[in-house]
C-alpha cells in the first residue's frame, strides 16, 4: 500500500519541474502543453511530439539523473514517519492501557482504604454515641461526684432580677441510675461500661452483705446489754423505717 503511494507521488509533483516541463522549457517559447492545460489549437502537434521528443532528448539525458535521489530520500522519510507514527500510536495505547489498569489497581487500593476508614469511623461513632447516651452520661457524672440540681433560678433579662430559688448543690447520697447501659458488641466503650457495671454490682452486693452483718452484730449487742441489765423483759423493738 505504501509502495504504490510512494511511486505515484513523485510522478505527480516532480513532473512540472524535472520531467516534461524542463524539456519543454528548453524547446523555446511555446505555451505550456501539459495534460489538461493543453490548448485545442495545438492538438495536432502533441500527436507527433512523442516521436520527435526522444530524438531531440537523446542528447539531453543528464538532468533526469538528479531527480531520483531526491525522490528516494523523500520516500524513505515518509516510511519512517509512518512507522514512527505507528509505533508511537501503539506505545501510547499501551501506556494508556497500563495506566488504566494501574488506575484500577489504585482504585481498588483506595476503595479498601475508604472502607477501612469508614469502618474505623463507624467504630469511633459507636463509641461516641455510647458515651453520649443519657444513662451513661448520668453514670459518669455520678462517678465524678456530680449531683442533680436542687433548685434552679432564672435571670430575667428585662428586669435584671433572678427569679426562682437557686441554691448551691449539696452533697447527696449516690443517685443510682436505674436505666441500664446499652448492651452492645464491637464497642470497646461498651465493653468497659459492662465491666464497670459488673464491678458496681459486685460492690453493691458486698456492701449489702457487710451492712447485713453489721446490723446483725448491732442487733446482738443490745440483746447482750439487755441481758446484762438483768431484766427479763426484752428491749422495745423498733421497726426500721421503710419496712
Amino acid at each position, binding site marked *: 500500500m505504501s509502495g504504490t503511494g510512494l511511486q505515484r507521488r513523485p510522478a505527480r509533483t516532480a513532473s512540472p519541474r524535472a520531467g516534461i516541463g524542463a524539456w519543454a522549457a528548453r524547446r523555446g517559447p511555446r505555451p505550456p502543453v501539459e495534460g489538461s492545460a493543453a490548448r485545442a489549437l495545438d492538438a495536432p502537434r502533441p500527436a507527433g511530439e512523442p516521436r520527435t521528443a526522444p530524438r531531440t532528448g537523446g542528447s539531453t539525458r543528464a538532468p533526469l539523473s538528479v531527480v531520483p535521489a531526491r525522490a528516494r530520500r523523500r520516500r524513505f522519510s515518509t516510511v519512517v514517519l509512518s512507522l514512527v507514527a505507528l509505533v508511537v500510536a501503539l506505545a501510547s495505547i499501551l501506556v494508556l492501557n497500563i495506566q488504566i489498569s494501574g488506575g484500577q489497581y489504585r482504585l481498588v487500593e483506595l476503595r479498601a482504604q475508604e472502607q477501612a476508614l469508614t469502618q474505623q469511623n463507624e467504630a469511633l461513632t459507636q463509641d461516641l454515641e455510647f458515651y453520649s447516651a443519657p*444513662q451513661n452520661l448520668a453514670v459518669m457524672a455520678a462517678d465524678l461526684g456530680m449531683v442533680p440540681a436542687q433548685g434552679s433560678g432564672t435571670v430575667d433579662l428585662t428586669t435584671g432580677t433572678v427569679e426562682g*430559688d437557686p441554691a448551691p448543690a449539696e452533697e447527696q447520697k449516690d443517685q443510682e441510675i436505674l436505666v441500664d447501659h446499652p448492651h452492645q458488641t464491637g464497642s470497646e466503650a461498651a465493653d468497659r461500661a459492662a465491666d464497670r457495671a459488673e464491678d458496681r454490682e459486685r460492690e453493691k452486693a458486698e456492701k449489702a452483705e457487710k451492712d447485713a452483718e453489721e446490723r446483725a452484730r448491732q442487733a446482738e449487742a443490745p440483746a447482750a446489754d439487755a441481758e446484762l441489765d438483768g431484766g427479763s423483759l426484752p428491749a422495745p423493738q423498733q421497726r426500721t423505717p421503710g419496712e
Partner: protein
Amino acid sequence: MARARSTTTGEDPGSFVLGRNHVGVALLLALLLVLAVRLVWVQGFDAAGRAEAAAAERSRTETVPALRGEIRDTDGNVLARTLQRYDVTVDQSMVREFDRPKADGTTETVTPTQAVYQLADALELEDEDVKKALDGDKPFEYVARGVTPEQWNKVREFGLPYVYGQPASDRIYPNGPVAGSVVGFMGGDDEALGGIEQTQDGLLRGTDGQRTYEISADGVRIPVAPTEETPVQDGSSVQLSIDSDVQFAAQQAVAERVEELDAEWGTAVVMRIEDGAVLALADSSTVDPNDIGAAAPEDLGARAVTQAVEPGSTQKILTAAAAVEEGIATPETEITVPPFLEIDGQKITDSFDHGQQDRTFAGIIADSMNTGTVLVGSKLSPQQRHDWMSRFGVGEATGIELPGESTGILTGPDQWDVRQQYTVLFGQGVAQTPLRTATVFQAIGNGGVQVEPRVVESVVAPDGTVTPAERPEGERVVSEETAEQVLDMMEVTVTQGGAKDAAVEGYRVGGKTGTSEAPSPEGGYDGYTTSFVGVAPVEDPQYLVAVTLQRPQGDVRTIGASSTFSKIMGQVLRHYDVPPSTTDPVQIPLRTDVEPTPEQTTPEQTSPEEPEPQETAAQEPEQSTPAGAPAPDPVGAPAPSPSRPAEPGD
C-alpha cells in the same frame, strides 16, 4: 518457510530429504487444519456458548444491600443505626492442613488445630466452640455472626482457605433501654419485630440493588468491560419527636418510684400540648433493643400504649368538662355533698370520711370526691356520659405509630349495669391506655382542641430531603371557655386540693390524681393503679406529663404518682427553658360552709403525712362495679379521715 528453504539449500537434494520436507509440510498443514477446524468449531458452531461461558467466568453479580435508615430523636441523636459486620463461615469439607506462604517467600504448615486457636483468639470465642464449628463435613457452617470489620480483617490475614467472610449488617441502638420500647428492635433475619422499626419498616428498609461487572484472573475489576447496575435504594431515616434527655429523665423518675413502692410497673407520657407530639414514653423497665433475648416479654412494648387500665379519678376531669360544657355546673357552682350518696340503691362513698359539706364544684374535683362528682355527673343521661367519653376518644386507639395499641374498653350505655353508669363518671368500669388519658388532658390544655398523639416527626430521604410527617387535624371537643374553667379546677387541685406534691417550684401547674383498683387476672381486684396527669404552665399550657403506677405496694395514701409527676415536669420545663410563671394562681374557694383560707392551710401542715415527703394526694380508691359491693372503700374504714385536713371537724 524458512525451514523449508534451509533444507533445500543446505542439504543434498535426495528422495529421503525431499520426503522429510513433504512430511514437514504435511504435518504443518495437518496442524493448520486442526486449528482451522477448531477455529470453525469455536467461532462458528459454538460461538454463543463459548462467549457466554467466558463472560460468566469473568463476570460477577453481587447484590448491593440497601442500607436501612436510621431512627433519630428530635435533636437528631441516633437511636438506631446499621453497622457493617461480617458473618464468618467455614466449608467444613475443606478443613485440612495447608501451607501458608509467608512474607519472606517461605511457607509454613497450618494444621486445623492451629487454625482453631488463631480463630478463637481473633474472634474472642471459646476454643471449644470454634472447634465444634470446624468439625464435620458440612459445606457451610457459621463460625461467628456479626463480627466487627476489625475482627474479620484479623481472620482474613490468617489466609485460611476454608474460612469465608460474608458481609452482613448489625443494628445498633446507641441509647439502649432509653426509649427502647418505642424505637423497637429487629429479629434475627432482619425482620422488624417491634416499635418504630416495625411500623415504619417500609420507609426504613429501602430496596436492594444489583451490580454485574467483569473481573480479571487476579480478581481485579476490568475497567473497560461492560457493567450493569440496578441502583440500590437506601432506606429513609425516621425522626421521632422523642427527646432522649426527657425520655431518660422520665424513665429514671418512674423507675425510682416503682422501686420505692415495689410496683408492678410504671409509665410516664410526656407530650407537647400544642401538637400532641410525644416527647417521652417511659417505662419503669424497658427492653434493650441490642439484646432482646434478655428482656422480659412484658417489657417489649410501651405500656402507655399497650396497657389499658381503669383511669380512676383522672376521668373526673372529663366528667367536669362535659358538665361545664353542657351548662350543668361551673367551677363555682355550690353543691351540698352528703357523707355518702345513695343513688338507685347504690352507695357511693369517698376516700375520706366527711360529714355533709357545702362545696364548690372545683372543691369536689380538687379533693376528688366521688359523691359530688356523681351528684353533678348524674345530671347527664347515660347516653350523654357515653358520648362525652367517646368525644374525648375513650374506647378508640389514638393511632400513634406504635404496634399493639390497645383501644381500651368502653361499652355502650345499654350494657352498663346500675352501678357502672355512675362509676364511669369517676373512671371505673371503663378502661383506657395512659396515653388516651393524657390526650383528654391535652385537649383541656389546648383550649379544647384535641390532637391525637404522634411520635414520628419527619422522614428524611437518603438524599437528605425532609418530609414532615402528617399530623392529624385537631378536633374541637369542648369550647375554649370550658377548657379554661376545667384548667382552673386542675390548678386548684394542685394549689389547694389533694395534690400539693405535684407542684413545681416557680411554675403554675394544674393536674389531677387518680386511683383505681386494678382488676386481678384471677377476677375481682387486687392492688391499685395510681396516676397523676398534669399540665404546665397553667397560664399557657405547653407540656403535659402523665404518670401511671400499676399495683404499688403500701398504704393507699402514700402510693400516688404526684411527686414523680413533679420531678418529671420540673425537668421538662427546665429542659425546654420555659420561663417561670409570673402570674398568680387562680383562687376558687373549695368550700362555702367554712372560712376558706386559714383553715385550709393550717391543718394541712399538721397532717400526719406532712413531715415525710410522701404523697398526701387524695388517693381515692373508688369502688367499682364488680368488686365494689364486697370490698367498699378500702381506706375509709381502717383509717378514718387521715389525709384530708379540713375534715376532722366534720
